[in-house]
């Protein structure tokens, strides 16, 4: 009797141990790196960043109009995540093999990492096989390729050039001409400041509107390969000519040209300061045309807004007609879920997105505008003409940086212009971040 009972207990204990081992194994399996598997998607799922409303609004318009059939076969489903958390979410989703059909990328470095791991569709091959590769503007394609190691890894939902938007009325009233060189720009700012007008509006909270100035100064001074040299290890940000660029921008802050508390100014506030006439100039990309065209936001009137290229640096190797350009926040498609229905959606987007975004959102994309759209105002026409005629494009300060260096650069920019960090310290900190990954 005792023997039978012991055997039964042994059997129960063995069962318990086996169950525990199975649960443990299951838990272990759940925590793997996850490769993800190809499967037919049920929706045209799109993970967007909350801050970018343009693309999801235009896609929603297409889903009800030109792409209604594609939407019926594969319904558009938009989810959003705060831009600051986007990279983290993508890394976790990629690790679990759960990337959506289409998603917004954060840093180019992460995009390339995902592409290397085979999680991003080969868009050039896909678009060519769909017969819509020619629907992309060549300038946008070249910008993407410059940014993503020679590959088309994102779609050009936006195609922006950057420069300085200025208030024509303020310039006229103060007898200022459009500055052609950096020294003239600084002199104009000094004149405005002396008259109690804030020369520049910029968001120190975002940081990038300030670091863009450093990057552009470098491109104008050292030449269009200035930051490629840093990426290739042929130059360091701590080299004197690189520190000089940071010093020039720091000097603008030291003189108070960005106004009070620049570190507390967020993106919307900086835009608002310019569009309500509280600041004379705003360095921004052409995506700001949507805000300029909106009378609710633009209190100075679109007719009062001018656009000038980032000025030349006297004696510099760069040229004023080399435009800083970008394709906005990169949006790409997953490799595993790119099937026939996804292809139909992409074809429809390629043929119709350009006109829809320009007509409804007032924004310029890297897709061809197949249905003619009248420009909302003169400055939009000016920017569109500039885009078409631009001979050479350059990137921005952090474009070729690692995610860490990018974060370090943008989060320290406000300290640089508020005088809490010297130009040398700033460049050293970013260079250290570049070297540490």
């Amino acid at each position: 009797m005792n023997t039978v009972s012991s055997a039964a207990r042994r059997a129960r204990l063995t069962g318990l141990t086996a169950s525990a081992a199975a649960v443990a194994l299951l838990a272990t399996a759940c925590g793997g790196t996850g490769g993800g598997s190809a499967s037919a998607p049920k929706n045209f799922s799109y993970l967007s960043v909350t801050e970018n409303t343009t693309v999801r609004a235009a896609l929603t318009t297409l889903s009800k109009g030109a792409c209604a059939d594609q939407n019926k076969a594969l319904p558009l489903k938009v989810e959003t995540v705060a831009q600051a958390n986007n990279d983290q979410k993508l890394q976790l989703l990629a690790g679990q093999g759960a990337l959506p059909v289409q998603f917004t990328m954060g840093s180019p470095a992460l995009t390339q990492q995902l592409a290397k791991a085979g999680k991003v569709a080969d868009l050039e091959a896909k678009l060519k096989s769909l017969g819509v590769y020619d629907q992309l503007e060549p300038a946008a394609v070249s910008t993407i390729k410059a940014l993503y190691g020679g590959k088309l890894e994102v779609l050009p939902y936006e195609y922006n050039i950057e420069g300085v938007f200025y208030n024509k009325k303020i310039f006229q009233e103060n007898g200022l001409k459009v500055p052609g060189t950096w020294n003239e720009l600084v002199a104009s700012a000094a004149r405005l400041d002396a008259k109690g007008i804030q020369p520049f509006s910029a968001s120190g909270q975002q940081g990038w509107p300030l670091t863009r100035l450093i990057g552009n100064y470098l491109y104008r001074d050292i030449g269009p390969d200035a930051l490629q040299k840093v990426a290739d290890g042929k130059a360091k940000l701590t080299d004197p000519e690189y520190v000089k660029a940071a010093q020039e921008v720091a000097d603008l802050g030291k003189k108070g040209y960005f106004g009070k508390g620049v570190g507390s100014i967020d993106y919307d506030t900086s835009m608002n300061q310019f569009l309500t006439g509280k600041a004379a100039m705003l360095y921004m990309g052409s995506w700001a045309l949507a805000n300029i065209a909106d009378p609710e936001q633009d209190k100075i009137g679109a007719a009062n807004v001018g656009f000038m290229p980032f000025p030349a640096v006297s004696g510099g190797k760069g040229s004023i007609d080399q435009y800083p350009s970008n394709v906005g926040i990169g949006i790409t498609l997953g490799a595993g879920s790119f099937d026939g229905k996804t292809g139909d959606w992409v074809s429809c987007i390629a043929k119709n997105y350009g006109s829809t975004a320009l007509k409804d959102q007032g924004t310029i994309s890297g897709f061809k505008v197949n249905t003619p759209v009248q420009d909302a105002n003169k400055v939009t026409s000016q920017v569109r003409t500039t885009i078409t005629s631009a001979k050479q494009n350059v990137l921005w300060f952090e474009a070729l940086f690692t995610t860490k260096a990018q974060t370090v650069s943008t989060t320290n920019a406000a300290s640089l212009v508020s005088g809490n960090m010297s130009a040398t310290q700033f460049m050293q900190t970013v260079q250290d971040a570049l070297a540490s990954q």
Partner: protein
Amino acid sequence: MHRVLGDRRAIAILLGPALLVYSLIMLVPMVWSLGYSFTKGNTIDGFTGNGLANFSRLFSDPAVHDALWFTLKYAVAVTVGQVVAGYLLALLYVFFLKRASALVRTLVFFPVVLPTVAVGLLFQRFFQVAPQTGPVNSLLNAVGLDSIDFFGGAGHAFWVLIIMDIWRSMGFYAVLLFAGLVDIPDEVLESARLDGASGLRLIRHIVLPLSLPVLMSSLIFSVNGTLKVFDSIVALTNGGPGNGTTPLTLYMFQTSFTYGDYGYGSTIALLLTVVCLLVTLVVFRVSRRDLTES
């Protein structure tokens, strides 16, 4: 009962399920995390062995030194602030407001239940310099002083953080210490008063020693909470300007999830665990000695 508890198999069956669940949700992740400390990589590229490289990097990384220094500085300042403020409030409730303290207790406790993000935004507005001048800067202007960009430099931002976190949590410590103070027998206080002790002498020689156990508990609560601070800093400064207000927790989070360096992130987490353990042991030792003395 004795027969059942003396049977090893019975003990295994009774404790087994709880032990299994505890192991799966507590021990396995901890050991797993420790294992990541010896690796390099992330969920996209996969993980490869990295030996002790993460540990040597930990010692030479200036950002870790800054974050550790900030964490300790913050923990000391907030712990002292919230326990002292809480104790003073508790004394106020017990000895001055007495039965009328309920309303004040509720009002002072109110920030404890507010969401951290809301408190962070409130303090941002309170201390802002642009685009609008906040109440603090308005006050400075009113007395003829210039506005201060509180979030422009790490020094000022640190003190705003300290003020915010003390304000946010002192109500909790006041209630905790209040419970300890009301436990002191009235007869002891009465006899001390008859012996001529009053005011500060009464507090120094009678109230403080008798409330020492609950004071020590508050210290342990506070130190552990402040060493692991995360949400309030993210809400108020997000670790900036630069990394001026970045504690170890935030640096660990950024390293793992923003920079995709899970191995090094785990090593930073391990450092934080060791710091928490050491500080708790020190507080325990001090508390045991003091209790014996009292």
